[in-house]
C-alpha cells in the first residue's frame, strides 16, 4: 500500500533548509501562499525507496516555537493542529553543524510535540575545516532520534534522509524535556484543570499569540478555577524553559561534539573586515549596486526589445492571417498585447532576483543590512529595506517582490507602499522627451541643464519615497514586535541550483500572480480605446476618407511622407540608382506612405472618439489647470496602465505614425495651445514631469502590491494617494511657473 507521507522541513534560518528541500524535490515543487496571508508556502514531492512518496512541506525558517512573526506563528499553528491536512507524519529538523547548539533548541521543542523527529546535520563538508568532530551514534541515543549527516554542496547524505523518512514509523516520538520542570507548581495546576490535554502543547497555546483550531485559547482563559499568570510571569517561565533546554543540550554536546578552535577562525573575519569597512564597505556595495542597475536598466533592454518585437510580429501575423473582425482585434490588440505587457517584465525580474539570490546565498546581504541600517532608521525603516528601495529605481515590480526578506510586517508594508515613488525605468522615456522639449540646452558648471533636471527627478523620487516612509511610520498603527537582530551567516559560494530555482520561482509567481490582473486590465483598456458609441467613431473610416478627399492629408501626414521620401532619396542616390528607376520606386513608396498616413489619420480619429477619447475630453477641465489639453489628458489617462505608453499614445493621437522619438518630439514642439503659444512649455512640461514622478501609473505594480499585501486595500490607497498628490504638486508647479 502506498500512502503519501507528510513531511515537514523545519529549521533555523541559514541552515541550508532550502537547499535540502531543493535536493529532495528537484523541480517538482510548488510555491504559493498560505490561504489568507502572504507567507510563502513551498511544497514538493519526493520519491522514497520502496515506491513510497513523500509530500514535503518547507516551513518558514524559525529559531524556536516562541513566535514573533507571522512566519513563525504559522509553524506553531501547523504543528499543533492534528487536523490540518499538512500535519506532518514526521518532522525533519535541519541544523547547521557550526551552529548545532542553537539549532538543537528548536529540535528539542519539536520533539516535545510528540512528532517523530529526524535530525539533519547539514554542511557536514565544513566539519574538517572547522575542526568539528561528532559522535553521531552517541548523539542519536542521547537525543532519542535518527541523524543524517548531509552536505547539500557535496550532495551526500540525501539518500539517508529519504531512507529515514520512509522508515518514519520506527522513529521515536518520545518527548525530551518534562515541562513540569519549568515550574512544578504552575504545571501541576495546569494538569489538574486540563487533565485531557498535553501539557507542553497547552503551554504553547498559552504563551504563543496564534490562532488555534484544536484547543481554544478562550477556553483556557475562561476556565474559572484556573488563574492565568501575568504576562511578565509567563515570560519568566519562558526564559526558564530556554535555560533548561540549553542545559540539556549542553550536557549532551559536551560528550558528543568537539570543536578544535585552533582550526576555526577563517575567511569570515578577513572578509568582514573589508566588506563592512567604513569606506570600502560602502564602495563595494555601491559598485555592486551599479552592476545590478546596469543589468536591470541596460542589459535587460536586449531581451526586452526582442520580446517586444516578437509580440508585435505575432499581433501582426494574427491580423494578417485571421479574417478581420472583433475577435481578431481582441486577440491581436487586447490579448497578445496584454500578454506581451506581462512577459516584457521577465528579464528585469530575472536579473534582479539573480543578483539578490547570489547576494543572499553568499551571505553578503546581511552585511548590507548591517552597513545601511543606521542610515535608514530616521525613516522608520531598517537596513533590510535598502535593496528593494534601490531596485525600485529600475522597476518597482521586482523591487516589491524583493520585500519578502523583511520579516517585520509594518516595515515591509511601508517599503511596499513607498517603492513606487522611486524613478523606475518606465518613467525615463517620458522624462527624456519632455526634458528635450522644455528644458533649454546650456550648461552650468560644465553640467547640462537637461542632465541636471534628470538627476533632480531621480532625487525627488527617492526623497519622496523616504519622506513618505517617515510619515507612514508615524501614521500606521501596526503592532510590530520583532526587534532588529540579523544573523551574519558564514560566507559561502552560492549554489547554482538554489540561484536558478529562485529565479524561476520568482518569475513564475509574477507571471501567474500579477499576470492575470494585468491581462484583464489590458483587455478593458483595449476595449475602451477601440470602441465608441458616437457616430463619429462608427463612421470614422468614411468621415476621414471624405475629409482627405476634400481637404487632402493633414499637414503632419504630408510632412511625414515628405521626410520619409527625402531620406529614402538620399540613401538610394548614394547607391547610384538610375533616375527613372528612382522615380518609380519613389512613386511606389509615396503610395505606400499615403496609405499608411490615411490609416493613421483614421486611427487617430477613432481614438479621439473612442470611450477613452471621450473620457479624455470629459477629463479636460480637470487637467486644464495643470496646463494640459485633452490630448495630453488621454495620454495621461492611458498611462495609468503603464507610464511608457505616454509617448505611444501621443504618437497615435497626433497620428505621426512612427515611434521615432525625434518625429514625435518635433510634432509635440509644434503643438500650440488656444492662445497660439507652444503647448509644451516650461510650465506645462515641468508640471507633467512632476505628475509622472508622483502618480501611481502602473497597473502591474498595483497587481503585485495586491498580491504581496493580499488585499485591494493597499494598492487602492496607493493609487488614490499618489495620484491626488501628483495632481496637487503638478497644479502648484504649473500655476507658479506660468
Amino acid at each position, binding site marked *: 500500500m502506498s500512502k503519501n507521507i507528510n513531511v515537514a522541513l523545519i529549521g533555523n534560518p541559514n541552515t541550508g533548509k532550502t537547499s535540502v528541500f531543493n535536493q529532495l524535490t528537484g523541480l517538482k515543487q510548488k510555491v504559493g501562499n498560505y490561504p489568507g496571508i502572504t507567507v510563502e508556502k513551498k511544497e514538493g514531492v519526493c520519491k522514497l525507496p520502496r515506491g513510497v512518496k513523500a509530500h514535503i512541506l518547507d516551513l518558514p525558517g524559525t*529559531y*524556536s516555537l*516562541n513566535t*514573533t512573526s507571522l512566519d513563525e506563528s504559522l509553524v506553531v499553528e501547523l504543528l499543533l493542529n492534528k487536523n490540518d491536512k499538512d500535519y506532518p507524519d514526521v518532522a525533519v529538523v535541519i541544523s547547521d553543524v*557550526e*551552529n548545532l*547548539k*542553537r539549532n538543537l*533548541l528548536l529540535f528539542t521543542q519539536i520533539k516535545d510535540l510528540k512528532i517523530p523527529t529526524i535530525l539533519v546535520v547539514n554542511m557536514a563538508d565544513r566539519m574538517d575545516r572547522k575542526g568539528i568532530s561528532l559522535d553521531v551514534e552517541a548523539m542519536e541515543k542521547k537525543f532519542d532520534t535518527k541523524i543524517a549527516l548531509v552536505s547539500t554542496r557535496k550532495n551526500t547524505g540525501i539518500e539517508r534522509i529519504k531512507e529515514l523518512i520512509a522508515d518514519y514509523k520506527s522513529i521515536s516520538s518520545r518527548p525530551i524535556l518534562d515541562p513540569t520542570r519549568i515550574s512544578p507548581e504552575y504545571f501541576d495546576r495546569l494538569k489538574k484543570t486540563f487533565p485531557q490535554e498535553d501539557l507542553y502543547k497547552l503551554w504553547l497555546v498559552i504563551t504563543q499569540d496564534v490562532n488555534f483550531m484544536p484547543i481554544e485559547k478562550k477556553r483556557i482563559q475562561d476556565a474559572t478555577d484556573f488563574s492565568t499568570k501575568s504576562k*511578565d510571569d509567563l*515570560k*519568566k517561565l*519562558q*526564559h526558564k524553559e*530556554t*535555560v533548561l533546554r*540549553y542545559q540539556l543540550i549542553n550536557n549532551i554536546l559536551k560528550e558528543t561534539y568537539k570543536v578544535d578552535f585552533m582550526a576555526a577562525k577563517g575567511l*569570515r*573575519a578577513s572578509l*568582514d*573586515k573589508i566588506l*563592512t*569597512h*567604513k*569606506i570600502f*564597505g*560602502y564602495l563595494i556595495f555601491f559598485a555592486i549596486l551599479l552592476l545590478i542597475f546596469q543589468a536591470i536598466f541596460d542589459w535587460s533592454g536586449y531581451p526586452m526589445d526582442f520580446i517586444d518585437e516578437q509580440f508585435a510580429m505575432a499581433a501582426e501575423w494574427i491580423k494578417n492571417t485571421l479574417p478581420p473582425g472583433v475577435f481578431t482585434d481582441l486577440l491581436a490588440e487586447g490579448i497578445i498585447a496584454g500578454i506581451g505587457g506581462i512577459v516584457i517584465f521577465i528579464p528585469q525580474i530575472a536579473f534582479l532576483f539573480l543578483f539578490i539570490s547570489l547576494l543572499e546565498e553568499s551571505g553578503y546581504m*546581511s552585511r548590507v*543590512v*548591517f*552597513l545601511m*541600517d*543606521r*542610515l535608514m532608521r530616521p525613516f522608520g525603516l531598517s537596513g533590510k529595506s535598502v535593496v528593494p528601495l534601490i531596485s525600485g529605481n529600475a522597476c518597482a515590480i521586482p523591487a516589491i517582490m524583493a520585500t519578502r526578506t523583511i520579516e517585520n510586517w509594518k516595515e515591509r508594508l511601508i517599503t511596499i507602499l513607498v517603492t513606487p515613488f522611486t524613478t523606475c525605468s518606465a518613467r525615463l522615456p517620458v522624462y527624456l522627451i519632455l526634458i528635450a522639449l522644455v528644458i533649454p540646452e546650456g550648461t552650468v558648471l560644465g553640467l547640462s541643464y537637461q542632465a541636471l533636471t534628470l538627476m533632480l527627478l531621480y532625487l525627488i523620487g527617492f526623497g519622496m519615497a523616504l519622506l513618505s516612509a517617515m510619515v507612514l511610520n508615524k501614521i500606521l498603527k501596526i503592532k510590530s514586535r520583532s*526587534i*532588529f*537582530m*540579523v*544573523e*551574519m*551567516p*558564514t560566507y559561502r559560494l552560492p549554489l547554482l541550483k538554489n540561484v536558478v530555482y529562485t529565479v524561476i520561482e520568482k518569475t513564475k509567481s509574477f507571471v501567474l500572480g500579477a499576470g492575470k490582473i494585468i491581462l484583464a486590465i489590458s483587455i478593458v483598456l483595449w476595449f475602451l480605446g477601440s470602441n465608441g458609441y458616437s457616430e463619429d467613431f462608427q463612421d470614422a473610416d468614411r468621415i476621414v476618407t471624405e475629409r482627405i478627399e476634400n481637404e487632402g492629408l493633414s499637414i503632419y501626414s504630408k510632412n511625414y511622407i515628405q521626410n520619409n521620401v527625402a531620406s529614402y532619396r538620399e540613401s538610394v542616390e548614394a547607391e547610384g540608382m538610375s533616375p527613372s528607376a528612382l522615380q518609380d520606386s519613389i512613386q511606389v513608396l509615396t503610395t505606400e506612405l499615403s496609405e499608411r498616413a490615411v490609416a493613421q489619420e483614421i486611427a487617430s480619429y477613432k481614438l479621439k472618439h473612442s470611450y477613452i477619447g471621450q473620457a479624455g475630453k470629459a477629463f479636460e477641465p480637470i487637467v486644464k489647470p495643470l496646463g494640459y489639453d485633452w490630448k495630453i489628458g488621454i495620454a495621461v489617462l492611458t498611462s495609468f496602465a503603464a507610464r511608457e505608453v505616454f509617448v505611444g499614445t501621443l504618437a497615435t493621437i497626433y497620428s505621426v505614425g512612427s515611434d521615432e522619438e525625434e518625429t514625435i518630439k518635433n510634432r509635440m514642439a509644434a503643438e500650440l495651445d488656444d492662445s497660439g503659444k507652444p503647448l509644451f512649455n516650461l510650465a506645462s512640461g515641468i508640471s507633467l514631469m512632476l505628475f509622472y514622478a508622483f502618480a501611481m501609473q502602473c497597473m502591474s505594480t498595483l497587481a503585485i502590491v495586491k498580491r504581496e499585501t493580499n488585499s485591494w486595500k493597499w494598492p487602492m490607497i496607493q493609487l488614490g494617494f499618489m495620484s491626488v498628490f501628483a495632481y496637487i504638486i503638478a497644479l502648484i508647479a504649473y500655476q507658479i511657473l506660468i
Partner: protein
Amino acid sequence: MATVADLRYGQKGIIKDFTEHILPIKLLELGCLPGNSVELLQIAPLNDPIYINLSGSHLAIRRSLAELIELEIIEETQAK
C-alpha cells in the same frame, strides 16, 4: 555596569546573571544566557549597529538592545 554596548573591537565579556526579564526571548534563544561569552567583531560605519559573536552565533544588533545585556569584560585587547 558594563554592557555589550561598551565593548571595544575584539573585546570579550561574560554575560551576567540577569534577574530582570526585559531581554527578548529571541536573544536568549540565540545564546544570550548567563555565563556565555560575547565578543565584539565589528561596529557599523555609523557606530550602530554592532556585530557580535554571541557564544557562536554571529549577530548584528542595535546599540539600544546591546545596552540591555550586562556583562563582565574579561579580555583587554590592544585597542586599535
